[in-house]
């Protein structure tokens, strides 16, 4: 039984037969083909096939869910019975619900199957290019994979979505070594619709490899000062984590989100506009359907610094009385600014080019601190040298408000598109 729709329909029927008032069933079939490089050498070809059946039932306002990775009818019948037991054990909650009916749709993107020879030749080409251009670089691990996902989402309100997606993903972890001196490791990742371009020309990998060779010889910073940081595109996703988390179900339902009363208010610099675009042409590695069963739409989270939406699911929306988000976040696209990166650097009196942030998860109030990794000291408008043993401390919410510039240039990672962002008033401390 490998037709996703047929399996999902069987699962949905089993849930209703077992007594669910409302039910949903999602079947996802995934096959992954992966080429692995360790220590600069091909080491492993990995092929995995998996099945995931997610079932949810609501009975008398009580909700239960389970997932299994078997799709035969016996397993589905057993899962349906289990999930009704789980629901019976839950507390009733008026906010439990499933998505209302929407027009049935079939979504697809990308290829159906990988080109393994092309994957091998593109990876080999990258390894050879890195060896020639950056001999100090040690490619600790590089992975190029192709993942094809076919899924079907059905619920008892009549939602009926079938999706198919094929996407290539590349990730790399690397460091550089010169004699006994070793750089901090760095990493990056990007997704691709196809393998038309050389991997070294995708995302930010080439620039990061070059920086890695410079970062063998770092200098610790002395003392402590309040200065500017320029956050690179590779680091911006980490810095936006606090924002997306604070807008999501958990902190919004518990009431601990500092943005809970800030809809349509200024929460960031007017220079900042942030979108979630899972179904945009800009994003090859997005998604078509939200986990609660809505066809995903693009949205604007922050428009010129003003908060335009929370990131609430159907449950979160019903629980808080606020609007449901039209997607489930991610696929972030940050609008470019009007200043070239070079000008941004020139405008910094003293600060840090923050290329990787190794920090603790932000507090609920936004306090954040961590080590500036793979980063550079900026003085009098010039990038001086790579630093080590230097910490950044501040508040993520304040940092959003204190953005002073957004670069004209952006990096396209396939799953997000980010510029460089300059922020003032950050505590920077060395030894």
């Amino acid at each position, binding site marked *: 039984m490998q037709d996703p729709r047929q399996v999902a329909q069987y699962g949905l029927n089993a849930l209703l037969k077992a007594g669910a008032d409302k039910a949903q069933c999602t079947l996802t079939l995934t096959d992954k083909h992966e080429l692995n490089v360790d220590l600069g050498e091909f080491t*492993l070809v*990995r092929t995995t096939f998996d099945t995931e059946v997610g079932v949810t039932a609501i009975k008398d306002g009580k909700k*239960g869910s389970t997932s299994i990775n078997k799709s035969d009818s016996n397993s589905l019948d057993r899962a349906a019975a289990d999930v009704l037991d789980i*629901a019976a*054990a839950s507390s009733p909650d008026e906010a439990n619900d499933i998505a209302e009916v929407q027009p049935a749709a079939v979504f697809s993107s990308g290829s159906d199957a990988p080109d393994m020879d092309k994957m091998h030749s593109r990876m080999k080409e990258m390894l050879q290019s890195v060896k020639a251009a950056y001999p100090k670089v*040690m490619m600790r691990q590089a992975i190029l994979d192709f993942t094809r996902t076919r899924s079907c989402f059905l619920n008892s309100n009549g939602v009926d979505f079938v999706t198919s997606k094929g996407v290539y993903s590349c990730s790399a972890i690397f460091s550089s070594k010169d004699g006994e001196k070793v750089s901090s490791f760095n990493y990056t990742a990007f997704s691709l619709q196809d393998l038309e371009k050389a991997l070294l020309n995708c995302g930010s990998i080439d620039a990061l490899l070059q920086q890695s060779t410079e970062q063998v010889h770092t200098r610790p910073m002395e003392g402590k000062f309040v200065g500017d940081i320029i956050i690179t595109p590779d680091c911006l996703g980490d810095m936006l984590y606090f924002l997306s988390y604070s807008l999501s179900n958990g902190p919004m339902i518990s009431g601990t989100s500092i943005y809970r009363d800030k809809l349509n208010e200024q929460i960031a610099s007017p220079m900042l506009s942030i979108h979630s675009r899972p179904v945009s042409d800009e994003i090859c590695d997005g998604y078509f359907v939200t986990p609660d069963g809505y066809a995903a739409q693009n949205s604007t989270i922050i428009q010129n610094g003003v908060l335009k939406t929370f990131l609430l699911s159907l449950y979160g929306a019903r629980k808080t009385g606020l609007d449901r988000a039209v997607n489930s976040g991610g696929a972030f696209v940050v609008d470019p600014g009007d200043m070239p990166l070079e000008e941004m650097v020139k405008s910094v009196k003293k600060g840090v080019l923050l290329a990787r942030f190794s920090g*603790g998860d932000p507090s609920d109030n936004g306090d954040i*601190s961590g080590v500036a990794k793979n980063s550079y000291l900026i003085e009098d408008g010039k990038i001086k040298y790579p630093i*080590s043993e230097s910490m950044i401390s501040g508040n993520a919410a304040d940092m959003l408000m204190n953005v002073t510039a957004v670069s004209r240039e952006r990096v396209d990672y396939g799953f997000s598109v980010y510029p460089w962002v300059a922020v003032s008033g950050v*505590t920077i401390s060395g030894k």
Partner: protein
Amino acid sequence: MHSLDLHGYAKLFTSYTELRAQENRTVRIDFVKGNNTRNSRSSTSGISARVHSDGSWGFASSPEINENAVKLAIRAATDNALFLDSRERKGKGLLPIVAASSANDYSTKKPRLGQKDLVQFVRELDDHVVRKYPDLASRTLIITCLDMEKTLLTSDGSHSHSMIPRSFVYVILSLMKDGVPTELSEAYGGLGQFEDVFTSPPQLFSDIESQYEHLVKKSEGIHPNAGLATCVLDAELAGILAHEAIGHTTEADLVMSGSVAEGKVGREVASPLVTLIDFANSCGGKTCSVPVYVDDEGTKAEDAVIIEKGTLKGYMHNKESADRFGVSPTGNVRAYQFSDEPLIRMRNTAIMPGTDKLDDMIASIDNGYYLIKPGNGQADSTSEFMFAVTLGYEIKSGKLGRAIRDTTISGVAFDMLKTVTMVSPDMKWISSGMCGKKQPIPVGMGGPAVKCKVTIGGR
């Protein structure tokens, strides 16, 4: 898990092969501010094969556990290894041959609790928290359980079966002071199925009382003074230091990629007060939180002594790295899901206890910090580390002062360990976290309190 005797499939092995059947079973129940926001179970199982051909590896997995799936997985993994070998021609020859066997099942012997019982457990705990601490702005209580069951057969003749469970109750408390939220979370639990780890909600009441008292102080806390500081790292932080800052740099795959530990075996890398061991399955006669007896390559798991009295003694290995270094494999290889290939992972990594009393350590510091609870952590190939600190106090003139707000500490481990001047005799283990390295994996971390110098984030 579907019972399938793997031994009959050895005849299908044409090269070095590992055949593994695995099931991961999870339970997750969340109560957020009294709302039962999640109530779920899951099960993920399947079969995998990994094949070695002259230095090239092939891996394949299937979500089914039956004869056909086994045959397909072995064939696909073999084809993958041959695909790579035909293009790379590494000519590295055979892996070292090891054979071991074990059977270790930590399933409870007690009657199993149903989902309803578990939900009731959290509900009772939540009722207690909201009744006892009415000034809390929010509370989140979570039950999370993971049973990991594996059966392994290798072409070397190793075979093993293990069922290693872990169960935790997370309690996350939040206070609002002047409109600013402050949170403190704690994980209670460890090795075992829920019935063996927890008796009833009152078992946790005194620990939650202590957690709440710390939270009140933290809500009135101050930002630390950023910069280098003399600190006492309490046991949990010493444990994460052992894992993140030292442990990772001594995993042989990271050593080979140029970690700072490369070429330092036999050299002094820490104060003579520091001994660091990655325990396979027991420490001091007690079973560790993540016991490993035979690893996922079929090697008997042995304790790996990393640092002995300040001197680096060795690394953690798989078969391939052990062969390259000319030593025996240490049994450090594990995979998280049936569909994951085995990697070099730590098991139960700890700094060994010393003789200095904690009170004396605090009294010896004129101006510094006593850091108690870690959050997330990360380390680098340079041994530069970072850990979040979610609970700590300032030390002024040898006495504990005000609590501090969430912060981060950092340092270069191989430098920082030379600043260790005192080590306490009491040891504590934590095991709620997952280590991330391509795949997540449960790990244990342990240690005593350690006095040292680290850089602390703040204002």
